[in-house]
C-alpha cells in the first residue's frame, strides 16, 4: 500500500511539476502575475507527511508554502494566480497513503 502511494505520488507530482513549469514560463513571458496568499486545511496527520506536502508545494513552480501549523493542520500557501485547493495539492491523497 505504501509502495502504491509512493508510486502514485511520484507520477502525479511529476505531472503537476511539468504543467506548473510550463504555466509559469508562459506567465514570465506575458506578465499575467496576480499573487495571492490562501490557507489550506490538510488531512495528513503525521508531521513528516505535512513537511513532504509543504515541500512538494514549494518545489512546484507557481505555488509556495509560507507557513505550516502542524497541530491545527493548516498551511499558508502563496499562489501565482488564484487557485483552488485541488489545483494546488493534487498529490495529497498519495502522501496520506504513504504516511498515515
Amino acid at each position: 500500500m505504501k509502495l502504491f502511494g509512493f508510486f502514485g505520488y511520484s507520477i502525479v507530482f511529476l505531472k503537476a511539476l511539468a504543467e506548473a513549469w510550463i504555466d509559469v514560463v508562459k506567465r514570465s513571458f506575458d506578465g499575467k502575475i496576480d499573487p495571492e496568499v490562501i490557507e489550506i486545511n490538510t488531512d495528513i496527520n503525521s508531521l513528516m507527511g505535512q513537511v513532504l506536502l509543504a515541500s512538494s508545494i514549494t518545489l512546484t513552480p507557481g505555488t509556495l508554502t509560507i507557513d505550516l501549523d502542524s497541530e491545527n493542520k493548516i498551511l499558508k500557501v502563496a499562489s501565482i494566480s488564484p487557485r483552488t485547493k485541488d489545483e494546488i495539492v493534487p498529490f495529497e491523497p498519495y502522501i496520506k497513503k504513504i504516511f498515515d
Partner: protein
Amino acid sequence: MFDDIVLIIASIGILLASFRLWVEKDREKMVYARLHITGVIDIACIVILLVFKQYLLALTYLVLVPFSAHAIANADYFDELKKQ
C-alpha cells in the same frame, strides 16, 4: 539529440524567467511571485544536472531548494521591520 532538445527547452525557460525577474515592478506580494519564478529556474537547473548525469548533485539541489524558499517566504511574511 533528445538531450539537446531538453537542454534548449530548459535554457529558454531560464531566459524567460530571468527576463520577468528583471522587468517586473514592485507591488503587493511580489516577493512570492519572484520566488515562484525562481522555482522555474530551479527546476530547469535540476533537469540540466540530470542530463549531464550529475545525479547526486541534482538530488541535493532537489531536497534543499524548497527549504530555502520556505525560509525566505516565511521571513518576509513575519517581517517585523515591515510593520514600523
